[in-house]
Structures are given as structure tokens and as C-alpha cells.
């Protein structure tokens, strides 16, 4: 095929070289380094009790946070799309704050807020509830980080849903709740699921916002990324690499899942895939 536009070879060539140098070769270093371990060493490094406890915390807290994000993300998206109220533009812009605010800043700020002497922590302290320096703090930080994913994937889909369908449902005698569950919800379900997967994927790898608030007690409130860092600090490169490979494989699988979900969503909305 003769290409009319010039520049294919040079742009694709540069893209591939840059991609290889920055991403692919360094990532392959991780995989190859893992091969210097025997299978037993690898299993030992990735399934010791302390590592297993960190998986449980990381995945459990991420799952919980992503679920909360689905509920409140849908609510915020709904309110922003369907209703008019004072300060709507400001709230809409603010949704992206967790993307724009450096994670370390979010981390220390949430810690100051939720610690026993903080504005919110103070309210819970008399009841013996601690919000910071335990798994609860981890979940709260991950809710903060994941919020924009759900709102920003659901919002455009909600904007595009056809009002006529809802009117038809109403004319046929559906209550508003039936219209929501039977007409609106199926239309936005793929977007909700995509947002959930994105928030979950981000939460699993998150480091900066969590380590300040987690308390980082081994077996209790130590997340997997922190474990990689502490192994590195003890010069246990092989151990750190083995855990990192597990994380890398999981994030790659999640990336493929998200791609598939997005393709499904495009098919649902009738756009070319």
C-alpha cells in the first residue's frame, strides 16, 4: 500500500525505539532478574507470611475502596450530569484533584486530618475509633486516589444516554426507580465496571498517599509496594524483584481487562470499535 502522508517510518521508528528504551528493556530487566532465582526461592520470596499478609491488605483495601468509589462516583457523576446547583462547575473541576495533587501531599494531609488530633479524627476518637495508622486509613487513602476514575468514566456515558428511552419507559408505566434499574443502569454498567477496574488497578500500585497513613506495621498495615522498598533497603534485590514481578503480572492482566471492558463499552454505545 502506498501511503500518501509522509513520516510513517520515522515516527513509528522513533516510537518503537523510545518505547523500548524507557519501558520494554527496563521491564524485561525485571523479568530476567527473576530468572536468576530458583523456583523454590521465587515461591519462598513471594509467599512468605509477611508477603501474603501484604497481598491481603493491598487487595482487600483496594477492592473495598474501588467499591466505595463505584457507589459515590456514580452518585457524583449523576448529580453533576442531571442536576443544576450552585457551585456545580467548581465541584466538577475539583473531581480531578486526586489526579493533580501529588500523592505525598495527599498522604500527609489525610494523615493530619484523620489522626486522633485531626479535624475528623477528633470526632471519632471519643468512641475509640482510630482512622489513621491502621487498615482503615489505607482504605480511606485509596478511596481518595480512586474517585476520579469512576466519575470520569461514567459521566460522559450518562451525558449520552437518550432521554427518549426514559420517557418511553415512563409512558409505559415504569416508576422512576424501575426506569433507573432497568433502563439507565444497564446503559452505564460497562462504564461503571471500567471505572471500578481502573480505580482498583491504581489502588493496588499506590504508594505515596498510603504509606503516611498506614502506620506500616508488618503483618497488619504494610502494603505490598512498601514491602518491595523495604526489601530493596535491605539489599535483597532478588526478593524485591520477585514480588515486583507478581505485581507487574497482575497489573498487566488488569490492563488487558480494562481494554476489553472499554471495547465492550464502545460496542454498547454503538461507536466503531
Amino acid at each position, binding site marked *: 500500500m502506498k501511503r500518501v502522508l509522509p513520516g510513517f517510518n520515522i*515516527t513509528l521508528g522513533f516510537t518503537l525505539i523510545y518505547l523500548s528504551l524507557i519501558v520494554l528493556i527496563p521491564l524485561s530487566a525485571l523479568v530476567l532478574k527473576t530468572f536468576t532465582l530458583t523456583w523454590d526461592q521465587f515461591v519462598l520470596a513471594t509467599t512468605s507470611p509477611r508477603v501474603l499478609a501484604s497481598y491481603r491488605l493491598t487487595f482487600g483495601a483496594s477492592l473495598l475502596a474501588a467499591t466505595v468509589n463505584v457507589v459515590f462516583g456514580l452518585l457524583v457523576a449523576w448529580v453533576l450530569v442531571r442536576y443544576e446547583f450552585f457551585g456545580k462547575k467548581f465541584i466538577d473541576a475539583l473531581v480531578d484533584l486526586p489526579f493533580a495533587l501529588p500523592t505525598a501531599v495527599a498522604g500527609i494531609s489525610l494523615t*493530619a486530618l484523620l489522626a486522633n488530633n485531626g479535624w475528623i479524627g477528633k470526632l471519632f476518637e471519643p468512641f475509640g475509633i482510630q482512622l489513621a495508622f491502621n487498615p482503615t486509613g489505607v482504605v480511606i487513602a485509596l478511596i481518595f486516589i480512586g474517585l476520579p476514575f469512576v466519575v470520569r468514566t461514567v459521566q460522559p456515558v450518562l451525558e449520552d444516554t437518550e432521554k427518549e428511552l426514559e420517557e418511553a419507559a415512563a409512558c409505559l408505566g415504569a416508576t422512576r426507580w424501575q426506569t433507573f434499574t432497568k433502563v439507565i443502569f444497564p446503559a452505564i454498567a460497562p462504564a461503571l465496571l471500567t471505572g471500578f477496574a481502573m480505580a482498583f488497578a491504581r489502588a493496588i500500585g499506590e504508594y505515596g498517599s498510603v504509606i503516611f497513613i498506614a502506620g506500616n506495621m508488618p503483618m497488619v498495615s504494610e502494603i505490598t509496594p512498601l514491602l518491595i522498598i523495604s526489601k530493596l533497603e535491605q539489599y535483597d534485590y532478588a526478593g524485591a524483584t520477585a514480588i515486583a514481578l507478581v505485581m507487574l503480572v497482575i497489573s498487566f492482566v488488569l490492563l488487558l481487562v480494562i481494554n476489553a471492558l472499554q471495547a465492550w463499552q464502545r460496542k454498547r454505545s454503538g461507536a466503531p470499535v
Partner: protein
Amino acid sequence: MSDSASHQLQSKAFSQIHEPRWVKISLISVALAFMFLFLILPLATVFTEALRKGFDAYWAALQEPDAWSAIRLTLLTAAIAVPLNLVFGISAAWAIAKYEFRGKAFLTTLVDLPFSVSPVVAGLIYVLMFGAQGWFGPWLQAQDIKIIFAVPGIILATVFVTFPFIARELIPLMQAQGNDEEQAAVVLGATGWQTFWYVTLPNIKWGLIYGVILCNARAMGEFGAVSVVSGHIRGQTNTMPLHVEILYNEYQSAAAFAVASLLALLALVTLALKSVVEWRHARALNAVADLPPENPHWSFHNDLTH
């Protein structure tokens, strides 16, 4: 009689495509309460904690030499990482959006890959490449070149985590715009560079600015990846987020929040710019929608340039 009946029916139909007033008000209230607790309070905390010891202490914290060197290093890192990823983003978007080739979908997925890799893993891979124990470690040591625990490592890690930002803004935008205009320019005798500069660039201007803003915010604020490769040498390899961490861990809370407040300001500026760009972009799109539809495809492109 029949008039009032039809009126009743109408208002019933209306009530069924809108929620009752009390539902609407409670939904808005819960959403706003959630936003207040999770977004506004943390943001407000940064500034109140920063000013806890008064303005003088705040200024003093910012004028500390270590804080200054952290600010300089952060600016330097962004000044190198953002242009690199800008050139890559344009190049990748041109190749992916303008041509058909085998493996295109896979290449697009690979471009997105750094987004889903944990920042800590991103830092670790460069340690495995260039660290003392890494592939090139011994050679680099022999040449007396430091990458890990030095500035080049920080820049590399930042380039990695901000890698997809600009490309992923541009690819869908350029795909939606098609090739017609560029082909017309080439047929009329424009060189490839002229075509890009006078035809493509004006069309993708807003998407490009948007991508650069987001890329810059992340480059200046990255913590996890940079933390792994930095070595935390005060005054030398500390970026602003790392400096915040050190101050915080040394119980200099007010000073930590003072530096953090600069980063929070950066985030607010980013959000404001982003809103402006989105608004301009929406206005350009609306102007297109108002045009007579004789050649909507052509006018769509043309109007995005204004």
C-alpha cells in the same frame, strides 16, 4: 374536564422522568458532603497546617536552602521529562492515528503500560538496570557515571511514570479527525513538516496543551518511583515531594506542609488550566455544531483551530 385530565397525565409523565424534589435534594447533599469530606477538607488541611506557625515560619520554611534545591530539582526534572514525552507523544500519535499497520492495537496497549505499573516497580526496574548490582552497574562505576541515587535516575523514573500522558490525549483526538486535511495539504504540495505544522498542529492544539498540563503535574508530583531511585541525599537528590516526606518524618510538620502547599497550589493551577482548556475546546466543538451541515467534516476540523 378533559383539559385538566390531560394536564394531570402530563404532570404525571413529567414526574416519572424526573426524581421527586426530596430525592434530588438528598442526592445533591450526599454527593456534596462526600466531596467536602474527601476532597475539600484534605486540600484545606494542607494550607491550614502550613500556616499553623504563622506567615513568618511559612516563609522561612520555603527559603531554606534544602527546600530551594528541591524546588530547583523538581523544575529541572519536569523541564526534561515533559518535552521528551511531548516529542514521543506527537510521534506515537502520528504513527498510530494516521496509518494502519499490523500490531497497532498491541502497540497502543504498550504505550498505556506505564500507567498500570506501580510507581515502586517503575523505580525498581531502573535500579536493576543501572544500580550497583544492575546490568550496567559495573560498567557505569568504571566510567564514574552515577545514574541511580543521582539526578539522571530521578529524571528517568519521572519519564517512565509520565510516559503515556500526552500520547493518550493525542491518539483518540487525531483518530477522530482523520487524514483528509493532511492528504489535501500533501496533494497541494506541502512537505510533511509543513503539513504537520500548519494543518495538524492547529487541530490538536487543545488536546496537546491538556496533555502537557497533566504530564507536568505528574512529573512534578511523582513520589513513589522517584523515592526508589533517589537515595534521598538532602540538597542533591531531593525533589519537592521527597523533601516533604523527609520534613514530615523529622516531625517538622509545618515546614513539610509549607513545601506541600506549593505542590497543592500547582495542583489547583493545573485544575484551573484544565477547566479553561476544556471550556475552550467545548466552545470550538459547539461552534462547529451550529454551522450549516453541508460539509460537517470539513468545518469540524477548521473550527477547532480557533
